[in-house]
């Protein structure tokens, strides 16, 4: 337990990691209290559908009614970014969750047992890694039909190989340690050795990568939505909002930044979300390395 | 015999996250000219730190808090306090007048350079003038040999080279070669220096009893065995004929039979090179093989210093006695020292050894004892005397 306390203290000491924590906590609060911050209008059954105030294509600047203005199609930006936080967390956490689990299972089997199993699993990861990730994700989403769930499936499918590789490498290293041999010497079964000894010691680099990747996944999801291959139109998703602003990035000549709010505000939300996770991931990496050295 | 190194009141502390560690506390130690002094102690005794303090290589978060380490400098014969020197001056002493051999032979050697290159580097760094002088002499012999058309064509070039090497041999900061060494292609014109360094390297390898030194010089560290690597490291340390060689557990990671060869080598070095050796070890047997005097440390302080015969025949400090009793010998009962080694963060008050000492007096908890001379060249820090 003193380990956790030490880690927590290190996390807070570093100003950058502190900033990361604050950002993520802020986003979490927004996500949890979304119904209070941006209440769903009466009669709507799906809170993720952004309320529209008309059907005009031209975005409207921020006003009293629409704090962040409206984007193309008169979708309320404020509502969109607030509920989009929930979507971002959902996409990020679910994708990383799936990917880490799949990666751990396949990676540890490959790393611990080696031999034919290792070869087979590694060749499968090779096949997946041979495709450019975004292209493959796009293909999968197209095949499954645009929705946030297909985005999640697609991103999970293209991200798991690097995790399997990473865990396999770390397990390969840990496998040679004396305490693993000692456990086998006690009569432990392979399952026990992997679950109780190898994995807990090998998991840290993976956790670091996972926290850094949550931001990357959200970015990728936003990219897919921007290309129209993501959430259905009108869905509260940051990528969606930026895709609506696609035609309004540059305003009329003479006032090119007229519709800045349409693209900048969703963009800022994406930026800070990714930044927060990146800072957190970096902080994890920093404290876990010297901690190992401290021993 | 004048002392080579005089350490007085040395204190080294480590400011760690958990607290302050008194790695070395009030140390007074002398290393005499030409002697092999053994520094014996267990983990946490501060013996390795003493070596690092002499070389001013204490790692962060450690700091040399106080004290003086007076060293008789070779050039000029004056006495310098190593702790007050500038880093630049200290660098010119490291590897040159004081050099160190570490425990892991593989760790001190760079795996991507050959043995010969690494040893030559020491010569090129510290012995440039001598190399220049030798190179100049070689060019001289070329010039005087004369004869041949090819030779006469090269003459002016040689004359220029001679001037160059003369400069290196003469001045301490010659401008021309320094400028040359910064221009990539022209640097190669100083190849004679490297040549001379290489031949000195081969001689040095022969001195440390490496078989077929010319061939070994072009090998990489991973191609040599542990014993060979350690000899190479010793060669590197002895390259500039240092006045003080510090050896930190140099034989601990070697096999027993190889260790025996190494100890022979150390004995020979003492005779041939006349250098003083600070031999750090936790193995009392090794200390008795190689050392003239032995100093025993515990928890950062000196317990006892005496000649090797005195220490083993008449050990006086309770810790020294206990340590000797704990060495396994055939047919002897193993005596253990009760308790555990002193906690580095919260050391016992007064004498650090008193909680484990069978003859502890009440005053041992209050006050630490000063080093007292109890016999011919035999000093003990204990209230019993």
């Amino acid at each position: 337990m003193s380990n956790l306390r030490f880690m927590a203290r290190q996390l807070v000491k570093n100003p950058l990691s502190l900033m990361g924590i604050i950002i993520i906590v802020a986003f979490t609060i927004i996500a949890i209290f979304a119904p209070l911050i941006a209440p769903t209008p009466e009669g709507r059954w799906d809170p993720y559908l952004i309320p529209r105030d008309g059907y005009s294509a031209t975005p409207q600047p921020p006003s009293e009614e629409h704090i962040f203005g409206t984007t193309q199609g008169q979708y309320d930006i404020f509502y969109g970014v607030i509920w989009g936080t929930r979507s971002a967390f959902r996409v990020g956490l679910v994708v990383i969750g799936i990917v880490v689990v799949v990666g751990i299972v396949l990676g540890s089997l490959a790393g611990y047992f080696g031999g034919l199993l290792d070869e087979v699993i590694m060749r499968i990861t090779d096949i997946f890694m041979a495709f450019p990730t975004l292209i493959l994700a796009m293909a999968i989403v197209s095949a499954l039909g645009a929705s946030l769930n297909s985005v999640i499936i697609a991103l999970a499918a293209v991200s798991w190989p690097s995790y399997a590789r990473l865990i396999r490498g770390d397990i390969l290293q840990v496998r040679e340690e004396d305490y693993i041999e000692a456990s086998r010497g006690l009569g432990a079964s392979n399952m026990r050795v992997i679950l109780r000894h190898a994995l807990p010691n090998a998991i840290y680099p993976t956790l670091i990568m996972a926290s850094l990747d949550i931001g990357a996944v959200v970015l990728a999801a936003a990219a897919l939505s921007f290309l129209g291959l993501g959430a259905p139109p009108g869905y509260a998703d940051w990528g969606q909002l930026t895709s609506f602003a696609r035609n309004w990035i540059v305003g009329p000549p003479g006032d090119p930044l007229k519709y800045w709010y349409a693209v900048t505000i969703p963009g800022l939300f994406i930026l800070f979300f990714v930044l927060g996770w990146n800072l957190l991931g970096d902080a994890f990496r920093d404290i876990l390395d010297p901690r190992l050295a401290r021993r | 015999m004048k002392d080579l190194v005089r350490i007085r009141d040395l204190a080294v502390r480590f400011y760690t996250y958990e607290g302050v560690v008194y790695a070395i506390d009030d140390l007074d130690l002398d290393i005499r000219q030409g002697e092999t002094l053994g520094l014996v102690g267990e983990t946490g005794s501060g013996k390795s730190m003493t070596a690092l303090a002499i070389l001013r290589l204490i790692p962060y978060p450690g700091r040399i808090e106080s004290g003086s380490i007076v060293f008789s400098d070779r050039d000029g014969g004056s006495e310098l306090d190593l702790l007050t020197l500038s880093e630049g001056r200290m660098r010119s002493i490291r590897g040159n007048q004081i050099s160190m051999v570490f425990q892991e032979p593989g760790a001190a050697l760079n795996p991507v350079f050959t043995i010969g290159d690494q040893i030559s580097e020491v010569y090129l760094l510290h012995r440039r003038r001598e190399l220049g002088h030798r190179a100049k002499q070689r060019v001289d012999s070329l010039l005087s040999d004369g004869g041949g058309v090819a030779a006469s064509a090269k003459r002016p070039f040689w004359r220029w080279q001679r001037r160059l090497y003369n400069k290196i041999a003469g001045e301490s900061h010659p401008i021309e070669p320094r400028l040359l060494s910064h221009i990539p292609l022209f640097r190669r014109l100083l190849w004679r220096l490297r040549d001379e360094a290489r031949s000195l390297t081969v001689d040095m390898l022969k001195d440390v009893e490496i078989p077929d030194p010319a061939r070994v010089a072009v090998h990489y560290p991973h191609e040599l065995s542990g014993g060979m690597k350690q000899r190479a490291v010793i060669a590197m340390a002895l390259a500039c004929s240092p006045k003080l060689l510090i050896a930190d557990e140099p034989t601990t990671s070697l096999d027993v039979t190889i260790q025996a060869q190494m100890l022979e080598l150390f004995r020979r070095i003492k005779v041939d090179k006349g250098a003083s050796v600070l031999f750090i070890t936790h193995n009392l047997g090794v200390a008795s093989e190689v050392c003239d005097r032995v100093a025993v440390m515990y928890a950062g302080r000196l317990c006892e210093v005496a000649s090797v015969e005195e220490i083993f025949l008449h050990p006086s400090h309770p810790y020294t006695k206990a340590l000797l009793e704990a060495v396994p010998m055939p047919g002897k009962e193993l005596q253990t020292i009760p308790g555990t080694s002193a906690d580095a963060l919260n050391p016992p008050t007064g004498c650090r050894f008193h909680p484990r000492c069978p003859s502890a007096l009440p005053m041992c908890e209050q006050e630490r004892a000063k080093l007292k001379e109890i016999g011919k060249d035999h000093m003990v820090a204990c209230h019993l005397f």
Partner: protein
Amino acid sequence: MVKAVDGVSLAVKRGQWLGLVGESGCGKTTLAKTVVRLLKPTSGHIYFDVPDEVKAEIEELESRDTNSGKLTSLVRENDLATFSGNMVRLFRRHAQLVHQDPFTSLDPRMKLKDIVAEPLRIHRILSGEAQETAVKELLIRVGLSAGQLGRYPHQFSGGQRQRIAIARALATKPEFIVFDEPTSALDVSVQAQILNLLKDLKSEFGLTYLYITHELLIAESVCDYIAVMYLGRVVEMGRPEEIFHTPRHPYAQSLVAATPVPDPKRRVGRIVLHGEVPSPANPPPGCTFHPRCSRASDECRELEPPLEPISNDHYVACFHPL
């Protein structure tokens, strides 16, 4: 192909403290790990607690060179080398290994109580409170206090960690413990404590020890019987006093001579062995020691000397013993 262990025949009697002495590359660690089946032998038999009659029967059937079903079944039941998963697991309750490096043999992310309780959990011995009591007793028995159950390995010193490893090895009440240089990473005073602890535990629990070390002094101080290994083979076996005072194999002799003793008078007349230990991947033909031996003859260069008795309970593998 590296012949780490080349045709070693060794017997450890019940209650004996057998010391296996040798330098790096001699195969002692490989032998130790093979004896507890952490490594699988390429060939040969390992008999753990098998009655003499059974061993004799197996030998007889083998010499007849028939491929009988009886032979296979006998071997499969008694030869540790051929045991399968479950049988190995059962074996592990009776034989344990203590590793050399206390800094890496304990899982750094496990608490002390889990480390010592693990063998009990694996073999489902005791549970709940009874298990916790057993763990506490084990810790007290090896000299640690029971109040440190919640700590992690890195909070302990080397000597304490080795004690934890010993407690863990004792958990299933084994009869046989193999020690792989357990004190080589420890200070002299700590080493003495551990050795005395091992002595006490052995007499209290009636244990049998196979003790690997490269330090002859330790072996001679605590062992009942010593086997000296060189490059995968046993070159001499005998009682400690005999090996120390009258070694008969040239290698054993140079080993004794090369071992430093804290006695300044004992420096003269030392026989320093020349050359390096050859790599086990490329052993010299015949007697593996002949390149460094001052008594080597042609016979030594071609033939491998067998391990033969030279006096009561004293064996040497040499054509020209001292």
